[in-house]
């Protein structure tokens, strides 16, 4: 081996001992680790109970939804309380991570980018759909209630099943389709600045599912395409590069029974969308297009 280990006599010796007959050393080490570990567990427990008791203002009080089909005691949904030390700028996601890493490692939620772009941590916080990473604790009243997105099947704790949402997104043929590609592979299709501006907001969707979960109609009609999928269709229908035939095809998908006409203009989706996409306006515009084109409507 070419990796030199000059200062390591100590380590090398103890390693050799572990492997051969010198059991007492290994046992001692194990014992010591056990003691350390017990102390750590006790420390964590202390931290937690102290917090439970304290009504310290520098801590935030969270009530978090818990459910796990497999674990006794969690099979019935319940709320757990956590008191998380607060620092300026702390978000709901930061608080959940703290609670998980310090108090209960089985607390389960999705998250990844922590910058409002992966769309994985939409939850129901104090009665409204929000991205946890984008929501400052200081904007919320205590106790902060964190629940999974309503009207979705709960997999565990704050994790919901997104399959239905994905299916609806995929039902609108969510991909660019044109017969009019330039000849050269280095030749781009032209798009005017204005047209890009028109579709810009619709392209911002991060598939978080907040809109769908806030929509009464979607809650009652499982087949309703829902605001996110309709917005996805809008993104392509309004893109001048796709051409008019394709637009007609898209309009036919949108006009079906569970398409745009289901929307009752309640604006709840627009209110919760963390990307500020004017969802209701997009749906309305598509309804107008449908009428204008004098295609089938009911």
């Amino acid at each position, binding site marked *: *081996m*070419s*990796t*030199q*280990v*000059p*200062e*390591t006599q100590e*380590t090398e010796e103890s*390693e050799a001992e*572990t492997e051969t007959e010198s059991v007492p050393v*290994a046992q001692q080490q194990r014992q010591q*680790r056990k003691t350390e*570990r*017990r102390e*750590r*567990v006790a420390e964590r427990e202390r931290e937690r109970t102290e917090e439970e008791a304290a009504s310290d203002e520098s801590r935030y009080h969270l009530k978090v939804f818990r459910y*796990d089909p497999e*674990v006794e005691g969690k099979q019935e949904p319940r709320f757990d309380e956590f008191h998380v030390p607060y620092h*300026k*700028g702390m978000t709901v996601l930061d608080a959940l991570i703290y609670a*998980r*890493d*310090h108090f209960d*490692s*089985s607390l*389960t939620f999705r998250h*990844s*980018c*922590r*910058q*409002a*772009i*992966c*769309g*994985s941590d939409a939850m129901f916080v104090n009665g409204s759909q929000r991205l946890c990473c*984008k929501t400052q604790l200081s904007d919320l009243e205590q106790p902060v209630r964190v629940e999974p997105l309503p009207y979705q099947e709960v*997999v*565990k704790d704050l994790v919901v099943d997104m399959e239905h949402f*994905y299916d609806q997104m995929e039902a609108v*043929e*969510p*991909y*660019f389709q*044109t017969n009019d590609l330039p000849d050269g*592979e*280095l*030749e781009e*299709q*032209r*798009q005017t*600045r204005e047209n*890009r501006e028109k*579709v*810009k907001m619709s*392209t911002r969707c*991060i*598939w978080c599912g907040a809109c769908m979960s806030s929509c009464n109609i979607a809650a009652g009609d499982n087949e309703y395409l829902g605001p996110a999928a309709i917005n996805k269709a809008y993104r*392509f229908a309004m893109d001048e*590069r796709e051409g008019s035939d394709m637009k007609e095809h898209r309009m036919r998908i949108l006009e079906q029974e569970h398409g745009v006409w289901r929307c009752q203009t309640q604006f709840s989706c627009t209110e919760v969308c963390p990307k500020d996409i004017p969802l209701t306006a997009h749906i309305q515009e598509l309804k107008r297009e449908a009428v204008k084109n004098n295609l089938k409507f009911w």
Partner: protein
Amino acid sequence: MYEHDVIVVGAGGAGLRAAIAAQEEGADVAIVSKLHPVRSHTGAAEGGINAALRDGDSWEDHAYDTMKGSDYLGDAPAIETLCQDSPKETIQLEHWGMAFSRDDDGRVSQRPFGGLSFPRTTYAGAETGHQLLHTMYEQLVKRGIKVYDEWYVLNLAVSDEEVPEDRTCHGIVAYDIQSGEVSGFRARNGVILATGGPGQVYDHTTNAVANTGDGVAMAYRAGVPMEDMEFIQFHPTTLPSTGVLITEGVRGEGGILYNENGERLMFEYGYANNAGELASRDVVSRAELTEINAGRGIDDEYVHLDMRHLGEERIIDRLENIVHLSEDFEGVDPLEEPMPVKPGQHYAMGGVETDENGETCITGLYAAGECACASVHGSNRLGGNALPELIVFGRRAGAHAAGKDLGTAEITTGKRGEWEAGEVDTPVAPGAVRGTDEDAVADGGKAPDGGAVAATGDEIVTRAVDAENRRIDRLMTKEDGVQHAEIRSEVQKSMTRHVNVFREKDGLKQALRDLREARERYTDVYVNDPSRTYNTDLIQTIETRNILDLAEAITLGALARNEFRGAHWRKEHQERDDENWLKHTMLSWNDGSPELWYKPVILEGEEKTYEPKIRSY
């Protein structure tokens, strides 16, 4: 057991592009990803994609800039491939409908970026990665490519030959996060790793929480060398409280850096008298930290990035996303005030050693994207060069794995070509801790028991599945112990303290000691959550093991490299040393301990040789 021709691990830009390419070559391809594709971190990329698209620009100029930016540690065949293929790949995205920003004539817009001699960064506002990721996922849906989403890949199933170069990868072992089921996936043609960066090695990073370096660690333990791991890019403009990135596009559009005295630091203190704020990232990061250390930082922590003079209209047109990020994550409205910024971990130049076809030294194992090191970035990546890397090398890996003939690679991998042994003076033994409990560290990449040479691919996959089941059982049945979160946070703290922008010998040694301690504690790690359903405790515990291996590789490489090159600054060695160090750092996992060796840099391109010059901006 599931079975496909090509299996792609990871669904960011590189993984999606690889899958599309493999399918175009007629392969039955599937993606296995721990996140649903649209949740991948590629979505966070902001600034843009470099591609020589315009008159007055050329792939040769792009290659020259990239080689210079790499501080002559890039391999010319890989760099030239990147720059030649990027225009076509970028326009391919446009043909797939990607919503690029547009010029008045309807063509895609381009802007200046650090270290580029031409404004060739093609972009979609300050959300290029989001647009790119979604556009490619749409193509996946269109083609009906199978995605196993929320499946965590635990390990590779690789045959057991003595020498890594003789081994073959037959598939992977993965864990269905929602159900807890562990399954084998047999790959008839090849496995492509596209698992992204290792940002979670550090505690102040622009990377997502999912970026834990899994693919690199798996390939490493299966016998593929990690290349140039010490070269970690720190981005000069991240928000101090979260590490959220403020794109280089802000400086590209004319944003200015000021210190506490309101001085334009890049010029005032001569850090980059020509390029100023647009010098490459390593130069600007050091400049900022030097200011902070000299007491000219604000709150002793950061400097200011000001873009107010650009005017609201231009800001909203080109950088709107930045306004939201700054407001939401730092509480600063950049139309009214300058933004606080400091350097943060951003990108790993190193990774799984591959050639310019994406292939590793193990037959049937490929890597692409940030987890790979085809060696296009050398010791410093230019902004806007990672996204083209994803699509160029993603496509090549996918096509090659599916059987397309891309010609013979010029870059040799593994210990086949010229190489020399390396030496490093470490204070503690690196590598696995040999505890009494074998299963505690039983996660080598190869099939676990010997004599497997003659075994069939199916058997090798089955055996790997058994080994992973044992590992999981052990972690889940252990009554108590240390939790991964503690170990992870210690590693992150030590790395940020000692293996950051500025590095010195004693600090690097301290980091190795800390890592050793963390490894020892890891032998006692346990999973508290008893449930098989969506057990993030278990997954993070396994990720933490990967973080440990990567952190150690970064530190070992940094301690050994006694020179100053690109992003790797050493207090004791303030000069680039071309005579001794024009070579790639390689680390191979040899029976549980890292072996250090080197291979030469390839500076000979298609038509010319890139002569190392002093890098000044």
